[in-house]
């Protein structure tokens, strides 16, 4: 297994080694789990300060599980997560947990469900400060107003005592972003933050997030199924398929020069907003399955138009094919 090369340790925000997350599949209410869904299987990567990485893949590929495991909303099955040079794989004390969540935050997909309908906007946005015991009421109010102003909820004082149902979808997602950013986190995971929003609002929220990322020097993991959005938002793209990272590289490199057959198919299937552009799409067979106790072979084997004998026998490793472009496919291995 090729280890992740260790770079300057100070600017690595989060580093993941052999991360695994399995979910037990129970066949009956009291039955012991005999099978496991390999939602995330052996991920290795690191994110440096200020980088934006997009996790891309179809539904069920494990991208949300990865995001939640990184923030320790899920307990990892195996592997090691190092966050700001501290091992956070096992959290033993409430203090450690508090520290972790003061530095890392998550923005969820659906702003209609992620905001508590019984709480006011002030309660929602100030809750992280409440948890962290930060400041008195005056200071909290000022901070909430500042961050609301920054995310484009203005004038903020007219929104403080409103409830989520009084806000539009775009405004709600802005509030959700404000809640995530009020503690000045170093690291944010955004899970499809714009997929529930309207077209014209979506661009507004995307532009806002780009500005905030640069302004606050945040490290960002952006989870999306939309490659066009990933291209716009991210510096690096990581393509996932059934719990495995199949390709990783600089955004333009992945878009212009995809190597893995799955990435090629995925990119060729994205519709292009130009009626004169004739897209050549690569046909792959079937649909995405479930990685329940998968056999030891390439997970894309059944659907791959270029599958070779070796693909059925061994699992391909993620190897570097030059300039940080990594791909897990036997078509590109030297031997």
């Amino acid at each position, binding site marked *: 297994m090729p280890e992740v090369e260790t770079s300057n340790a100070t600017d690595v925000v989060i580093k993941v080694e052999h991360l695994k997350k399995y979910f037990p599949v129970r066949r009956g209410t009291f039955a012991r789990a005999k099978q496991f869904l390999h939602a995330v299987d052996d991920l290795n990567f690191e994110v440096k300060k200020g980088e934006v990485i997009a996790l891309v893949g*179809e539904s069920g590929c494990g991208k949300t599980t990865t995001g939640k495991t990184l923030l320790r909303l899920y307990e990892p099955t195996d592997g090691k997560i190092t966050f700001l040079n501290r091992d956070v794989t096992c959290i033993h004390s409430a203090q450690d947990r508090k520290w972790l969540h003061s530095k890392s935050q998550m923005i969820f997909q659906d702003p209609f469900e992620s905001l508590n309908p019984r709480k006011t906007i002030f309660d929602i946005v100030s809750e992280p400060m409440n948890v962290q015991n930060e400041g008195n009421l005056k200071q909290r109010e000022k901070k909430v107003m500042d961050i609301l102003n920054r995310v484009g909820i203005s004038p903020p004082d007219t929104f403080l005592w409103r409830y989520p149902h009084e806000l539009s979808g775009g405004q709600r997602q802005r509030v959700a972003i404000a809640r995530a950013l009020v503690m000045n986190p170093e690291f944010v995971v955004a899970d499809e933050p714009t997929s529930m929003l309207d077209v*014209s*609002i979506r661009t507004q929220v*995307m*532009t806002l997030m780009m500005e905030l990322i640069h302004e606050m020097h945040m490290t960002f993991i952006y989870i999306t199924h939309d490659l*066009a959005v990933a291209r716009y938002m991210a510096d690096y793209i990581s393509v996932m398929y059934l719990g495995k990272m199949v390709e990783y590289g600089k955004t333009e490199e992945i878009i212009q020069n995809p190597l893995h057959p799955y990435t090629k198919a995925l990119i060729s299937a994205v519709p*292009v907003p130009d009626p004169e552009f004739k897209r050549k799409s690569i046909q792959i067979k079937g649909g*995405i399955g479930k990685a329940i106790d998968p056999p030891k072979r390439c997970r894309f084997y059944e659907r791959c138009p270029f599958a070779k004998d070796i693909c059925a026998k061994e699992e391909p490793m993620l190897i570097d094919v030059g300039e940080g472009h990594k791909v897990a496919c036997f078509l590109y291995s030297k031997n």
Partner: protein
Amino acid sequence: MRPVLEVKNLKMYYNTRAGIVKAADDISFTLAQGESMGLVGESGCGKTSVSMSIMRLLAENANIVNGNIYFKGKDIVKLNDEEINKIRWAGIAMIFQAAMNSLNPVYKVGDQIIEAILAHEPNVTFEESRARVAELYKLVGLDPKRMDNYPHEYSGGMKQRAIIAMSLSCNPDIIIADEPTTALDVIVQDMILKEMAKIQKKLNMSMIYISHDIAVIAEVAEKIAIMYAGKIVELSDAVTVFKKPAHPYTVGLMSSFPSIHGEKKKLVTIPGEPPNLLNAPDHCRFAPRCPFATKECWEKMPLYEEISPNHFVACFHPQNLRKQVSKDA
């Protein structure tokens, strides 16, 4: 070509306790035999209301207050319930939004399609309809053996294919597809769109695609209508709408969509939010968000006019915009 469907000055309003919601306000378009049209707009712009008016599947508080919908020369608006029932499904079929969840979970998928056939064609025997469903399954790329499975045994893409088979079951002249691929993954979406376009060509049907995604519409539609706040603001063939847009909203919509093809460009955002259609104002509804709005736009409603052959726009200053865009480029 004689149009199969002609919508003329359609006004469909909802009466609510808070006031009148003008969901479809003065909508006019035609659809020729074998033509595919895209209806694009954000949620709440009235695109589904238009399609529901065409099917006459209206909520209790919804009224068609004005206008005509001619289907093969017959005015749908004036038909009684029995007559409209004959047109539904056999004349105009619809693929509903979130169609994947519209299958009944306790009946076999094949039986649900057979039920639709038998309801409209009482002379057909059960065996004949079963044979027809098998044919339809082959047409949409499903294995006819799967007829006797229940919906939960299908994947999302397969359910969508079954729904398409169901919409084709009575040989309709028009299919209205309301967000047919929104809940699907890209690769499956691509397959379904290809399949639908192929079937449409093969059977020479007319299609109306409804979507918020201009990229999807660009792939499948020959003619595009852009809707904003209950109005069609621009209508023309696909290439004209994409290459020579004349309405500021169309331009905004195009430039706010990230694309995977070509140069990575900066996205332009449309400021503000779509208006509430409750007691909508009498002036141009895009004026509050429009960078080119003048005094005129805040006073009157622009007319829906043909600015060049087959290019309809509802804007006071389509030419100004043209100049502005060419200057920027």
